[in-house]
């Protein structure tokens, strides 16, 4: 009982200073505790609210803070309950609440704060002292749900790391647990080992928070080597942190405190762990597990080490199973029917016959395919898409025509690769994009310029000035040709406007616009008719790492250091959607081919898929061990590939939300991924100066789609990445930073030559 009271006092003292900085962050997830194992409360004797003990005076404030917090989050029911129980007056702002009730309720609340520990204690000791029982007692059952929802949350906010054990014992606790886990059966060991990393971090942070500098250092040195190698980056950040003051404003740390580390453990293993901790009365660890970990328990066989390794590695553990349950309409939208003139199929014929122009609607295989509505496709008008213009139709026709001449790629017919080297870029090339028809190439540079090249003999021309335009005969047939200023024709144009390195670049599908995002926090829209900046979209206040146009134009997505991805429309200066949830920088952003979804990759080593319509996060994909720098969707919209600094390419099934492949081979960060036009080949380009080709057809074909154990989240990755590797092409000191398949399936690659 004494310990509990101490803890309560501690929490009361610390809350005032903690409250302000933590509250904003915790508001993101009110329901995260509902999956909490029901270990805490059962077995606790019936509540007796009347027997509240008086406690330290500081706790009145605690209670007020709690109330304020609850109100802020509109948890009126809980407020009601708390108020009723604590006997506080109706106006929480009234600071003159009676001393006795205030302190009394403070005791109650503080008891709740350590409730879990208390209840555990009571269970362990089997014969709880009455006082402890009353303090720890939750409210009556009907209201318990509501209170149970919030209380641990508040608890995190108020008393994070304040339960102070003996710093020397941390070492003992941890090594005790380590010994235990090493001694359990093999099948459980891998699962339970997952606990190490979050425990280690939280224990370290507790030590640091409580100013045990020497102990924390010793603790870190002793156990940091045991952690999985893919946490090395985070550990490096942790290691630099040795003072309580440092914890303020450290992002990694806030992430740890505000979000629960998610573990997936089978019921058997979990029981094992629980029993051990209870036997050993290891409260310290148990408290951390209760408060900072989210353990997703599943029934069935424990997972193997490789299965766990495949999925772990993200900053906040694995994704919860239910976060990937939402239905995703991954099918493609129906293509608008366009009449494809048959006649110019054969150019010679056309030349002989003059210009017959029969205008027969063409019923080829492509047309038929688009007629059938894909059951997985979203409604055609699920999100409003821009109308097709005549020029777009023309482009579509060109596209179809090219498609008929497309090389059918496969294992035996690999694509030719044409490499565009940027010479004399002085290490300054940061982003590259090609237009869909491969006629233009744009590069973003560290010196904040953007350059556009024409790779066809057609030169880039600017539209004439307004004065000159007024002189043009607007009725003439070649007015589009006349508006261009022949004098400005050149092979490349430079766009000035950014004030920092340009990190992302994207052409609009109709080739009229170019987007660029930069370190200066803006996204700029450039016209490729006038080669001037049209709009600067301000919203990200920090560097914007990536941007991309929707495949249908009009919309675009951007993401950056502020951890928020924004969806914009070109004619709005404010974003239409903000996708928040990543725990670290958003490093890359990609549109789904049907434009209804957006994928973002992040430094927190997760990929999230967002619904453009609702703004919800519909998939969280974990498994990468480094910041994700490349994402590509397969042309049928069903699959996704992602590449990270860890040099691995992961393949995902979007519908089921699970990993289906792991392509190993690259030795450095992967900066670009692209599927061939038919989705049969996946090309990846990396910092290790190679382009690699993978057999995507085989990777997706071999899936046993019926055997998906999406319910348990078990994955069985085939170890065949070497069979899938079709080719490795080494460049000469040129990192590959962009890849693009032309409409005929010729692979274009780009990078800066760095001798």
């Amino acid at each position, binding site marked *: 009982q004494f310990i509990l009271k101490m803890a309560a006092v501690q929490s009361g003292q610390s809350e005032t200073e903690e409250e302000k900085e933590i509250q904003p962050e915790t508001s993101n997830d009110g329901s995260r505790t509902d999956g909490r194992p029901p270990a805490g409360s059962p077995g606790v004797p019936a509540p007796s609210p009347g027997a509240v003990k008086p406690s330290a005076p500081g706790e009145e404030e605690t209670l007020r803070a709690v109330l304020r917090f609850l109100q802020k989050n509109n948890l009126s029911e809980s407020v009601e309950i708390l108020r009723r129980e604590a006997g506080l007056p109706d106006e929480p702002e009234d600071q003159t609440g009676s001393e006795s009730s205030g302190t009394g309720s403070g005791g109650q609340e503080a008891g709740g704060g350590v409730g879990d520990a208390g209840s555990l204690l009571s269970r362990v000791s089997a014969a709880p002292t009455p006082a402890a029982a009353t303090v720890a007692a939750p409210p009556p059952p009907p209201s318990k749900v509501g209170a149970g929802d919030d209380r641990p949350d508040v608890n995190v906010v108020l008393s994070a790391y304040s339960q102070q054990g003996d710093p020397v014992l941390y070492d003992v606790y941890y090594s005790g647990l380590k010994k235990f886990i090493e001694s359990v059966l093999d099948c459980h060991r891998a699962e339970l080992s997952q606990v190490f990393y979050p425990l280690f971090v939280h224990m370290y942070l507790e030590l640091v928070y409580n100013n045990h500098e020497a102990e924390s250092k010793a603790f870190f040195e002793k156990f940091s080597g045991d952690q999985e190698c893919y946490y090395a980056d985070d550990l490096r950040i942790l290691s630099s942190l040795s003072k309580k003051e440092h914890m303020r404003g450290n992002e990694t740390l806030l992430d740890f405190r505000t979000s629960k580390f998610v573990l997936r453990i089978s019921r058997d293993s979990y029981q094992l762990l629980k029993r051990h901790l209870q036997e050993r009365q290891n409260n310290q660890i148990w408290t951390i597990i209760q408060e900072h970990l989210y353990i997703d328990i599943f029934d069935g066989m424990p997972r193997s080490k490789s299965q766990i390794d495949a999925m772990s590695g993200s900053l906040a553990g694995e994704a919860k199973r239910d976060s990937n349950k939402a239905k995703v309409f991954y099918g493609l939208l129906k293509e608008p029917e366009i009449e494809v003139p048959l006649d110019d199929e054969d150019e010679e014929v056309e030349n002989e016959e003059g210009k017959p122009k029969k205008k027969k609607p063409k019923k080829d295989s492509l047309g038929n395919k688009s007629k059938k509505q894909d059951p997985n496709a979203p409604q055609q008008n699920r999100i409003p898409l821009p109308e097709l213009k005549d020029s777009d139709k023309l482009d579509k026709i060109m596209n179809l025509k090219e498609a008929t001449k497309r090389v059918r790629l496969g294992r035996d017919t690999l694509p030719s690769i044409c490499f565009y080297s940027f010479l004399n870029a002085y*290490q300054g090339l940061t982003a590259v994009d090609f237009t869909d028809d491969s006629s233009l190439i744009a590069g973003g540079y560290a010196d904040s310029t953007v350059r556009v090249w024409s790779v066809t003999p057609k030169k880039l021309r600017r539209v004439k000035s307004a004065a000159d335009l007024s002189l043009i005969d607007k009725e003439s047939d070649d007015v589009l040709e006349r508006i261009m200023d022949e004098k400005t024709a050149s*092979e490349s144009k430079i766009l000035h406007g950014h004030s920092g390195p340009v990190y992302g670049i994207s052409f609009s599908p109709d080739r009229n616009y170019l987007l660029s995002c930069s370190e200066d926090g803006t996204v700029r829209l450039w016209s490729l008719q006038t080669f001037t900046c049209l709009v600067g979209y301000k919203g990200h206040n920090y560097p914007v790492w990536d941007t991309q146009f929707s495949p249908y134009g009009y919309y675009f997505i951007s993401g950056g250091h502020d951890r928020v991805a924004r969806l914009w429309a070109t004619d709005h200066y404010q974003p239409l959607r903000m996708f928040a949830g990543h725990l670290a920088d958003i490093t890359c952003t990609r549109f789904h081919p049907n434009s209804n979804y957006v994928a973002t990759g992040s430094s927190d080593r997760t990929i999230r898929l967002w619904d453009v319509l609702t703004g919800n996060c519909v998939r969280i994909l974990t498994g990468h061990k480094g910041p994700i720098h490349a994402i590509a969707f397969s042309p049928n919209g069903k699959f996704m590939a992602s590449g990270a600094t860890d040099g691995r390419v992961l393949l995902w099934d979007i519908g089921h939300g699970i990993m289906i492949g792991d392509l190993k081979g690259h030795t450095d960060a992967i900066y670009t991924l692209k599927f061939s036009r038919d989705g049969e080949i996946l090309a990846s380009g990396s910092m290790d100066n190679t382009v690699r080709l993978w057999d995507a057809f085989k990777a997706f074909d071999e899936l046993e789609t019926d055997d998906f154990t999406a319910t348990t989240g078990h994955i069985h990755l085939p170890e065949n990445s070497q069979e899938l590797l079709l080719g490795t092409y080494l460049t000469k000191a040129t990192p590959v930073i962009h890849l693009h398949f032309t409409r005929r399936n010729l692979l274009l690659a780009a990078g800066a030559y760095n001798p």
Partner: protein
Amino acid sequence: MAEERRPKQCTVVVPTESMKAMAESIGVGQLQEESCVALSDEVSYRIKEIAQDALKFMHHGKRRKLTTSDIDNALKLKNVEPLYGFQSQDFIPFRFASGGGRELHFYEEKEVDLSDIINTPLPRVPLDVSLKAHWLSIDGVQPAIPENPPPAPKEQQKAESTEPLKVVKPGQEEDGIQNKTQGATSAESKEGIILSEGYGGYSTLDYCMFVCVCRLQEALQSIATDPGLYQMLPRFSTFISEGVRVNVVQNNLALLIYLMRMVKALMDNPTLYLEKYLHELIPAVVTCIVSKQLCLRPDVDNHWALRDFAARLMAQSCKTFSTTTNNIQSRITKTFTKSWLDEKTQWTTRYGCIAGLSELGADVIKTLILPRLTIEGARIRAVMDGPVVSNIDKIGADHVQSLLLKHCASVIAKTRNPPDNVEQYRLDYGYLGPMLCSHVVKARTQAALQAQQVNRTTLTITQPRPTLTVSQSSLGGSGGPRTPSIIKVPSSLTLMSPRPGTPTQPSPPATKYIVMATSSGASSTQQVITLSSSQSGGTSTVQSATSGLQPLVKLESGGGPGLTASRPMQKYIVVSLPSSASLDGKGSGLTAISSSTAQLEAGMKLERSDSPGASTH
């Protein structure tokens, strides 16, 4: 490994002395020890934090090197004013100083005189960014062009030769290499440079070299620079060793010279791992140094130059390849010394031995040649002053004499102290003494002259080659990326047009001139005639060839792409001679013809397969 590093990360802090030093530098005199500790903790943490943020910028900048601008950006992220004046692309050297028990690292900033800056001519404007395209792969096969890295890096060639079993590792490596080798071989077959079928039965065959001096020059150039040749290396090596064997018997001086130049070219090629083939190459080279007879008319032909050249080659290979395990240098030295010491050795061989030894350097001359000068002098005198034995001997002795004089004089000039007394020399070196003396004097004056000139820096200006622009503009018209092997670019980048789609990189010329078998049996006799007639010319060019000729770009090859339809590639198919004076050469000659046409067809095919790709844009 990481585990060892991590504890270190945990503890690294800026030393408190630094804090003191910094405090003093801004005028804070007495800083409490405690505040120093607190400060250094804080500062170390902040620095680490900023460095971690800067890393982020590096990653997004797609670089491997952290730059000062990354730090600036990281500071900006924290709303801190960036450090101005540290815009350096290079490593900033910190200087170290200690004194008074203090150690200090500082960045040395020199005071700059403004007038200096104003008066120095402007530096060259950095070249503008340009875009160049080349084929990284054609239908899944990487063409061996200079824009691509060599099919197998030197390390891998080494691994293959030293640990043949290890190379084929299970897993990822395997695929890569197999792919690569497949790629390389098929690329070569496509380009039509695969050897004729004769390879299997080369004991009967012998390639001989053809000679058309202008072509040969290019062929050698190609051998010296082509990155994709390593697959051919075994054949080259056999070709050379067989060629030398045959031609020594036939006394075909011109061909020997070309073979030696080929060795030289191979050695010049930085992408080849030659170690594996030294057992074939070195005997060939040594043969060319010490063989009794290398030409039909030793009294007239200048086989001495060949010996000199081969000796230089030998010295070069000793320098590059000699290790403690293979002991090339000592073995070679032994060989030379042994045959030199032999009384019966002919003058030609003697000359070769001395040349070979003296090329190995001043030390070898000092220890091995100088002590024998007296004996050698006596021998020469016996020939010169004695009864005329034969003209050949006399010429030989004459050459040996001048050779000795040439090499020894410079060494003596360095080792012996100035007063050059003729008598003293005669005493020391016998017959050659007086002549040596005059040579030494000459060498000394020359050295003095050179010493004066050393200070003058030489400026080499490479002449821009106008042909280039021509070839590029012609390419520009055709549009789209092209197989770039046709375009030759000198090492200067200045001439690049901003036109994308013409792939060029600062690398050696790309055209492939592979010297290989094949020519018609009928014409072979003619070529032999050409051979002998060009002999004198050939020998005289040996010297210039070694001095790293960079042949000018030929207009015809630059403008190639336009013509390729009619003429598949710039391919110089080269020659075989009938086998060693026997008649069965006809058969091989015939097979050679058929194979040559096959190559041409392959070349055509390649062209065709290129063009659809190029027009897909």
